[in-house]
């Protein structure tokens, strides 16, 4: 079968190549998915560039990407929750990475039936970003009337986080650039802040939760706008100490600046490392079918133009998800 593989770390164009590879083996707990669509996310680019080789080392060549939608064409002996012919979607686990291919084998625990009211392409754009948003806001225990700031409302995670937070009844502030203000409003955000003309720090005061999807200075600035005793949740900032321990970094300490800010505000800081979860994807499926969440797609590329899709991803200017139609 045809697969887009990472052949070395480095620039996108030099490091990705189409290869003919054998169909993946199906273990007892796996389903084999005939891939209809895959999505690429910032992590896929970071892996190719080698930025994550310490945390997520990969052998070469490795088929790229984690997000998938497609049809179950084979299943292992221990799989009872799926049948051949089921239409499914998944964020595949690290060890099964490789959705930019005609087939991918995935442990059934990481798979859910796809929402019935959206296409394969739309469904492929949900798993990684949707699970990240759900796990982050669930960790924060978001509830009705909480005031949350979600950075980068037009991004893959941000756009789904806004809709999830609204479904839970929260008041949502979000930041985006001028060109995205209108459609981000349509996602339900209560106050869309145009960061090109407004300073979010003067608008957001005492937020219960700040959801940092940007990192760098935004992580520390979060403590200026979060309330005393509030929560800062990040998916791109420094690891928190518990998460670092999970990766075996026993002596890791939160950078001093953040530790001080966190102490001063008595506000917690948590880094969320998304984990694959089929049951949570089933929850998201219901929310999509109930029209509480809709996926936002920037561009759909044919499989043959996957490398151009990565180049697009690299610009960081996508409004919603970049999808690759495989079949």
């Amino acid at each position: 079968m045809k697969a887009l593989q990472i052949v070395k770390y480095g620039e996108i164009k030099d490091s990705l190549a189409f290869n003919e590879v054998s169909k993946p083996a199906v273990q007892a707990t796996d389903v084999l998915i005939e891939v209809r669509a895959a999505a690429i996310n910032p992590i896929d680019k970071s892996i190719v560039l080698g930025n994550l080789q310490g945390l997520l080392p990969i052998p070469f060549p490795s088929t790229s990407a984690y997000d998938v939608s497609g049809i179950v064409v084979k299943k292992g002996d221990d799989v009872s929750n799926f049948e051949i012919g089921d239409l499914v979607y998944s964020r595949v686990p690290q060890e099964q990475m490789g959705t930019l291919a005609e087939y991918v084998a995935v442990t059934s625990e990481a798979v859910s039936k796809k929402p019935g009211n959206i296409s394969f392409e739309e469904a492929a754009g949900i798993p990684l970003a949707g699970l990240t948003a759900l796990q982050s806001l669930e960790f924060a225990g978001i509830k009705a009337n909480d005031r949350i700031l979600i950075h980068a409302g037009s991004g893959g995670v941000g756009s789904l986080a806004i809709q999830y937070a609204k479904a839970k009844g929260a008041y949502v502030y979000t930041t985006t650039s001028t060109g995205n203000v209108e459609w981000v409003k349509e996602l339900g955000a209560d106050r869309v802040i145009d960061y090109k003309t407004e300073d979010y720090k003067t608008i957001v005061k005492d937020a219960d939760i700040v959801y940092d999807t940007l990192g760098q200075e935004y992580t520390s600035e979060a403590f200026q706008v979060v309330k005393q005793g509030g929560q800062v949740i990040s998916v791109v900032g420094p690891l928190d100490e518990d998460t670092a321990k999970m990766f075996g970094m026993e002596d890791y300490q939160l950078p001093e600046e953040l530790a001080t800010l966190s102490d001063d505000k008595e506000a917690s800081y948590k880094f969320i490392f998304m984990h694959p979860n089929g049951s949570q994807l089933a929850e998201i499926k219901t929310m999509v079918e109930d029209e509480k969440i809709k996926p936002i797609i920037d561009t759909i590329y044919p499989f043959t133009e996957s490398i151009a899709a990565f180049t697009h991803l690299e610009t960081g200017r996508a409004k919603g998800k970049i999808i690759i139609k495989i079949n």
Partner: protein
Amino acid sequence: MEELIKIIKSNHSLSQEAEDYLYSISTKKSFAKGEVLIRQGQQVQNVYFVTDGCLRSYCYDKNGKEHTLQFAIKNWWISDYIAIHSDESATLTVECLKESEVVKFNAKALEKMYTLFPEYEPFQRKISERHVVSLNKRILNQLQLTATERYTLFITQYPEIEQYTHNYHIASYLGITQESLSRIRVENAKH
């Protein structure tokens, strides 16, 4: 099953032998919400008479979106008749939208009923005619009525179905988008 026999006997004669045969080729089954009775791509051997609950038949298009063909509530029949009559694998999936009870018949054994007990045929013919009438009406409504009129007719005729369905089940049944259906509902609520 008793309900079905009662329905048949209300307008048709049915011998004790024919009744016994119907019992012998049928099984009462209960299904939970979400359970699938017929799956697209698989062989179809059975037809179902609904005694309680709500079911739906639908197909996927090539983009993976579902399109509802039929809903079935108490005293309705449901299956993939295309598959049964063309002896092909299912083009439809039949699933329960709520906890449901059905009487399952083997389609071939039910077919045999006509030759074994000709008095049964008029009953089955009436069902088939009603089915054709309902499909014709559905096509005509699709051609002649506005989306709002189709929705209004649907909830007037089948008020109970809406409570078991997602919006997109009804939207795809009526051939409109979910957004249009939501808009129509808002408009209807104003009147």
